[in-house]
């Protein structure tokens, strides 16, 4: 029986050798999950992940969709002055 409250149900509970054993198995699952989660996060930021051809084409399609989207276009228009200034500064620094 595991930490039952005094007013809780009673019944033929499944047995395990000890509470320590239960905790240790729960910890094992938790630690394994932590490793898997970290691996997943690492994959997210990895620059070396090799995309399959289908994934690569899909990613390119998504980029095209993003670059033709209204928010992207509006952003390009709004940042025109900034980009002109940037270009002028770059030109001056190259002289």
């Amino acid at each position, binding site marked *: 029986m595991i930490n039952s409250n005094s007013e809780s149900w009673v019944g033929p509970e499944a047995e395990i050798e000890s509470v320590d054993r239960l905790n240790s198995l729960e910890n094992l699952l938790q630690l394994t999950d932590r*490793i898997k989660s970290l691996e997943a996060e690492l994959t997210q930021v990895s620059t070396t992940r090799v995309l399959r051809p289908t994934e690569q084409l899909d990613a390119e399609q998504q980029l095209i969709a993003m670059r033709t989207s209204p928010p992207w276009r509006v952003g390009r228009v709004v940042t025109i002055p900034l980009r002109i200034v940037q270009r002028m500064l770059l030109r001056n620094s190259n002289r």
Partner: protein
Amino acid sequence: MSSLPTLTIWVDGVDRSRADVERALREAARQAAPGTEFVCLIAADERYGEDWPVDAAVRVVPLPEDDAVSLNRLLSQTRSDWVVWIDASARLAPGGLGHVESAVARFDIDLLYGDSRLPGSQRIQRPVFSPIRLRSQDYLGDVRGFRVEALRQSGGFGQGHAGAHPLDLSLRLGTDVARVLRIPEILSVCTMPVRPATEQHRKVVSQFLDARDIAAEVTVVAEALQLNYPLVSAPLVSIIIPTRGSSARIRGTESVLVVDAVRGILERSTYPSFEFVVVADDETPQSVIDALVCLAGDSLRLVRWSKDFNFSAKMNRGAIFARGAYLMLLNDDVDLITPGWIEAMLGLASQPGVGLVGSLLFFEDGTVQHGGHVYSASWAGHIAFEWPADRDDDLGSMGVVREVSGVTAACAMIRADTFWQLGGFSLDYAGNYNDVDLSLKVRESGRSVIWTPHARLYHFESKSRIATVEPAELTTLRAHWGTRLLSDPYWPARP
């Protein structure tokens, strides 16, 4: 200097009208580079003259009933790197051949296919390559490309497969999924998104599975193939049900959910070997516990939960007490519809490479609650949510076993050793997205997640339930799996 891969166009005109064949050839010739080989396959009893209305030399090949010898001879004679196979009932969409040429020049692949358009303007977006789905349905469309060298190495055209060669070749060349390309462009204008399964398709799939020592009974059901994977033994399945013994009104009568779920399984399941692992909150009424003990007897393993609510932790505890080689993750508010639900899911779960299997769930009113998960725009939802039971998409996806991005843990089966290898459910997700995370862990491990329409249950979750989503859970999910949640390869966005 390496030259670009060359294409030969094969137009399959068997059982197609002369007008269809000419139209398909004309469009292909318009798009093809000068010097491209054209082959027109026709039935042996057809008589075609030489007056083709296309500006290209077309080799007309009458095929006998068993056409493998003729096709293999053609294959041995071709000097091209790729065969582009076009069913004459379809034709190349404008720019379609260009997409193919560009793809074969860029990628080292063996098989390609793409999207289609119906004669109006409706686009048919095809999912990424799904070997399991291909066994039930030839969903790759009327235009596909086969690398000639790969075709030769795989043994070429199979005998007795007339009318189903594209499926046969796709199954064999698709054994390495990484070498299959889905081009996300419209390659063809077709008359029907998917051709109905035929006896020839059935034979092809049976032979393909036989060659790989996979036991399966394949039958044509409606417009698709249904595969039944016979079980050589009956491994113990542990049905893990977390509960607090709640009651609800179901179909007008008061129901103690977990008790009725267990009773339904005991009375109607046909599978002989299972146990219940019920993880019950301290607050569970004694009458519920008594009823479960009375109903399930020795097949019940009662496990106490005394901590705060955490679905993931409760399921993990259930898994610790489970003795089965397979775990059935199950909510307490379900009622089974198909008595053979465990067999259907177990047959799939025991296939090589399969990690997690989900089912078709209905709301109480008969509308669909779950047809697999769809992950898109950094969000997770259910395929076919609230669809009427008889509704389907253009590809007939609701009637076929298929790979999906994920499945709900309201009813899902996983091998116990896989569950342990992946760390079970993540405690980061106490209430939501725990099944999304588990599904993505399964896929990240190289295994696939499969959904089947042949295991059907009611899930009495309220349609109007507003899930309390903890922002932290969503943030964690996006941090772990951000790029996997952007667009769903198995359920492309429907325009």
